[in-house]
């Protein structure tokens, strides 16, 4: 039985931690390191860093932020945004990342996903899928941090990336992202039914009970959280306490 992982997600633009709605309208929250350290101390299971404009400019500026992070934070770190090559992956791992999340470059060149999985192992490869509902119970894959349609069906793409060697899927609902309306549970269920990989639900967590729906109805084994934590409406500690009280198996901490 897996423990459900509680993963603060830090979207980064330049030196700042930011937060948007539907991955747009980005607002500056503060220092990534201060927030990351607070979440680590509250008992976060992992951290996800996403360079929110990296795809747009074809670069990733997280190097320094990640190097800083691993000085004092000893939990797994996933880094995404603008990762386009095996060299980019090597660089991020050298900076202290444990996994990379790839979306845009993997859609453009699925061979890259296979290459990364073979070179670094599946455990290192998180495929990030940004999903937008385009018809009832039908979702399309978007790239470029939610800006670009790909024409790919989310469920079909999830199966394909599983075959290509993905170790996990970070599944972000663009429709829910930043809205606090809860996870898109049918989307989560459609993907967890289709693949046996661990799926991280992202986008929409607004209340503690949303976690319960994502786990029990969505079938996911990890949640990414941003808005709720960044605006200090709750803490990782409180979410963990809620999970334990709701019979969701999470890591014992403290």
């Amino acid at each position: 039985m897996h423990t459900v992982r509680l993963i603060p997600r830090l979207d980064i633009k330049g030196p700042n931690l930011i937060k948007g709605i539907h991955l747009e309208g980005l607002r500056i929250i503060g220092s990534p390191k201060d927030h990351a350290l607070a979440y680590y101390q509250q008992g976060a299971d992992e951290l996800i860093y996403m360079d929110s404009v990296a795809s747009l400019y074809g670069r990733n500026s997280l190097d320094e932020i990640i190097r800083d992070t691993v000085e004092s934070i000893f939990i797994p770190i996933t880094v995404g945004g603008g990762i386009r090559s095996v060299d980019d992956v090597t660089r991020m791992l050298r900076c202290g990342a444990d996994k990379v999340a790839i979306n845009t470059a993997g859609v453009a060149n699925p061979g890259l996903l296979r290459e990364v999985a073979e070179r670094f192992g599946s455990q290192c490869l998180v495929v990030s899928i940004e999903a937008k509902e385009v018809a009832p119970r039908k979702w399309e894959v978007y790239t470029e941090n939610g800006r670009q349609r790909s024409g790919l069906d989310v469920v079909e793409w999830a199966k394909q990336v599983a075959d290509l060697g993905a170790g996990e899927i970070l599944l972000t609902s663009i429709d829910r992202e930043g809205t606090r309306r809860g996870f898109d549970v049918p989307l989560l269920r459609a993907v967890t039914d289709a693949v046996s990989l661990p799926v991280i639900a992202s986008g929409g967590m607004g209340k503690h009970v949303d976690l319960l729906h994502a786990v029990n109805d969505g079938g996911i084994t990890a949640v990414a959280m941003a808005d709720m934590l960044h605006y200090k409406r709750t803490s990782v500690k409180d979410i963990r306490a809620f999970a334990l009280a709701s019979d969701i198996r999470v890591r014992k901490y403290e």
Partner: protein
Amino acid sequence: MNEAPVILVDYGMGNLLSVQRALEYCGAKVIQTSDPELIRGAKRLVLPGVGAFHNGMKELDRRGLVSVIKDVAAKDTPILGICLGMQMLLDESEEFGLTNGLGLISGRVVPIPAISPSGELHKIPHVGWSPLIKSAGHNVALPNILQGLDEEDYVYFIHSYMVALRDQAHLLATTNYGGTQIPGVIGCKRILGCQFHPEKSGKTGLRILNNFLKL
């Protein structure tokens, strides 16, 4: 604490910086190197590793490090293998065809079974936090790398293969993955291995690294 630096073997496949930072956080001096002579003179050695077994052994071999690490082990130098680094301590692995390991602890690296003894389907890779269960009857003469840990302290695992030890006396702790017992900590004299990542396992992981530094 011993002042001699910890030699962290760089063979191109580890999360070296994270391991280095965690050891430094515990007060150690750390040298990352692939220099056979520096490694040969190590007073304390850490073999990190992320990736596939055959690639790991190939990269060690390419740098002339296979026999060097065996020599270090023969001198009863404390060695800690992490994840792939632990798996490479064994005789051989079934990952991508049978590949020889360092042969410092007797056993074989095998895939995590797809189905548990109770019939549960395992998600593979095994990713996440899982409690360590200390082996009840493990050889007390072995160094106590688990000192100060509570029963059920969680550590972070991420792997698709696991070790099958020939001698259960080398098994120091396991974790239960849906009914499958996965070796978490193994040891033979002062050669130790963690299947999980102590450098990514928060305070519990740091405690284990601290214990290693005191051997």
